[in-house]
């Protein structure tokens, strides 16, 4: 029972640099995932414009009928968002943990070019371990 359907990482210009889906539900082909990522980047920016008060940093949670979308934006502007089942707990801490993995295995990788698609094996391995459902529950503690 995959509570998490997919994970996207977007660079600060809105381009998709990482996409991972877990299982057949919510699978998207490459072109669609690129479009969805760019669209999300724009929506995130527009939502800041519509804020009634100062200091809005964009959409953090989108709730739909059949899924929830949690988004985390790091200080440099990289966005991590995860599409999951409605009501899945601990997604915020999972996103922060994924950000830690990103800084450790991607940014510190000397062969990785910033803003380019992520092709780091260690990142993939650790990410797969992190999204196993029992691990996600541990993160919530």
């Amino acid at each position, binding site marked *: 029972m995959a509570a998490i359907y997919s994970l996207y990482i977007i660079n600060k210009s809105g381009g998709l640099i990482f996409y991972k889906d877990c299982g057949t539900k919510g699978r998207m082909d490459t072109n669609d995932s690129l479009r969805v990522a760019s669209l999300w980047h724009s*929506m995130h920016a527009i939502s800041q414009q*519509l*804020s009634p008060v100062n200091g*809005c940093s964009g959409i953090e949670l989108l709730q739909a009928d*059949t899924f929830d979308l949690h988004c985390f934006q790091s200080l440099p502007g990289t966005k991590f968002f995860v599409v999951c089942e409605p009501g899945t707990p601990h997604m915020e801490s999972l996103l922060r943990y994924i950000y830690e993995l990103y800084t450790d295995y991607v940014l510190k990788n000397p062969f990785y070019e910033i803003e380019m698609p992520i092709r780091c094996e260690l990142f993939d391995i650790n990410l797969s371990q992190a999204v196993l459902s029992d691990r996600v529950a541990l993160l919530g503690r």
Partner: protein
Amino acid sequence: MQFFGGSEINPSPQVPTASGNNAHMMYVFNRNGVCLLYKEWNRPLHTLNPQQDHKLMFGLLFSLKSLTAKMDPVKLVISSSIFPFDVDLINFGSIYPVCSADKGNLGVPQLPGQGCSFHSFRTNTYKLSFMETPSGIKIILVTHPKTGDLRESLKYIYGLYVEYVAKNPIYNPGSPVKSELFNTALDQYVRSIS
């Protein structure tokens, strides 16, 4: 015994905003994007002028609906796309031929109620709750971020709309709402939402 002088002993608690409730503002749009009603209770920041603000809000919702319909993990077979080409919303002017997917292509206009729709989103400064009726009336309520699920409240507001606006024989559909009764009832109701 007085240890400290004067009025600092009991500073007055923070005075709630003039409206005294959580709601910042509310929009009602019809299916063509005309803003039928805009009510503001507490909005310190105005980024754009009203017309642009309404258009931006409608555009955001339209695109978000299209996004959620596409991202929907539950594969529903929607009437197969009659558009052979998919217009990429981000790359203006470039058109990609796409084989018609289960969920239709991104950007294909959806009927009200067709496809998965979102019902709210939250940022760090506000929460936006959204409801679309089968007739295409979109009701949007922008509140404090810690507000709970407002779907029932939005349904009630739609009920008020039906009673005071739709059933009003003088009301011209598609024009902005000017009903005093509706405004009063709405105001009263929204102030009572915790």
